[in-house]
């Protein structure tokens, strides 16, 4: 029975991988939310000089596989960069800011974060757009009637409401980011899926290795789901205004 268990060392690998998964997906989700909002605003801009490039950008990133995008950032971008910059990116760097030591991460982290962020942002932008469309047009008219300037109408009236409408699908995108972060193993990022495969090859305990990884993924997704339900329940619904 005991020899069915994974040695602590291998459990440690999985835990380390899990931390990387959490870190990469959390950072990418945060960055993608900001970028997604900007892309959504550009997409809805009255000038086509903003709206059309945004449309093309969104459609490009949504309609190509994340795996190919990651390969592009990891191999393709590296080939485009001047040799010196690539070497700098690939060597470890340390800075000391006050009490924190800041370390420049290896290139696969940068490429993985970039790829996951840009991919996720394209989907988040569409969720925001649906949220904006869900705000009744009369709201913006009423805000303008009070003398709010166009950016204030967005800032104080449209975006806060769009955010609330978009929250459930937004959380769905954060779950996707967690799941999609598994693809970064293809460019050598030592996240959870990578670790589970490594443990599997070392120990041949396939069930245990994949099982623990699967449970960790399900647990993370479940936590996001519960957090969403908690937020939804805690704040009163906007409800029908009439």
């Amino acid at each position: 029975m005991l020899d069915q268990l994974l040695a602590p060392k291998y459990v440690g690998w999985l835990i380390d991988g899990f931390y990387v998964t959490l870190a990469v997906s959390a950072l990418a989700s945060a960055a993608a939310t900001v970028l997604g909002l900007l892309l959504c605003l550009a997409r809805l801009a009255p000038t086509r000089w903003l709206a059309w490039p945004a449309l093309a950008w969104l459609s490009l990133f949504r309609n190509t596989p994340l795996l190919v995008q990651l390969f592009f950032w990891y191999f393709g971008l590296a080939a485009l960069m001047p040799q010196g910059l690539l070497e700098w990116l690939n060597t470890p760097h340390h800075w000391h800011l006050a009490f924190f030591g800041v370390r420049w991460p290896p290139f696969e982290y940068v490429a993985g974060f970039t790829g996951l962020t840009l991919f996720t942002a394209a989907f988040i932008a569409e969720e925001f757009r649906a949220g904006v469309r869900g705000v009744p047009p009369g709201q913006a008219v009423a805000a303008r009637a009070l003398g709010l300037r166009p950016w204030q109408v967005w800032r104080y009236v449209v975006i806060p409401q769009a955010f609330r409408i978009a929250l459930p699908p937004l959380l769905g995108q954060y779950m996707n980011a967690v799941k999609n972060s598994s693809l970064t193993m293809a460019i050598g990022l030592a996240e959870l899926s990578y670790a589970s495969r490594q443990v599997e090859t070392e120990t041949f305990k396939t069930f245990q290795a994949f099982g623990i990884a699967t449970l960790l993924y399900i647990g993370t997704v479940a936590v996001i789901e519960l957090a969403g339900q908690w937020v939804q329940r805690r704040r009163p619904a906007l409800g029908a205004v009439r």
Partner: protein
Amino acid sequence: MDFSVIADNLSYFLLGAWPHGPLGGAALTLVLSISSALASGALGLVLGVALATTHGPAHQGLVLALGFFRAIPVLMLIFWTYFLLPIVFGFNVPGTGTVVVALSLIGGSYLAHSVYAGIASLPPGQWQAAAALGLRRADALRHVILPQALPIMLPSFLNQWIALIKDSSLAYVIGVGELSFVATQVSNREMVYPTEIFLFVALLYFIICSSLELGAGAIARRYGSAEKQT
């Protein structure tokens, strides 16, 4: 940028080693996508109807099982099927089959919910009217409910299939020679043109996926305007 690497390997990108070897490249991506689209569609329809017609523990169990497939990364499911299918069937399952099973399970789980939502969106009066005419539940489903619900679901089917095409690239991890696998092969062999190669491969995926997306949009608009008229 030097795109001659694309021209030199064009047949390999599109067809793999075929006709001298196994089919691969973009053609295999299409084969993977179409088979898992069909299988996930059938699975989604059956499971969605099951969701709509079950109650109590059976329903809860189904929701939980579908939730499991939607909560794990496609990659992990490919690992699992790669590992478990030979145990279940007792013989070696080819990588292509493994991927199709994994993609169908995931796609089917998402589609089951769309089908369920589509059925639930119909007014309950439709079931009652069919019952009042003496139709059994199965007949009511087949002749009254599904014909109305399917057009509502069509856009989500197409969107799910777009996701399947993109997810088929994950076949790469178990060495199935589809488009993204072929791309890394060529990239590793040539060493010098990864930018051109991955741009080209992205373009191929983009063409396939965005034409489906345009189709989904057109259907949604057509259906939406039909709804307004009534």
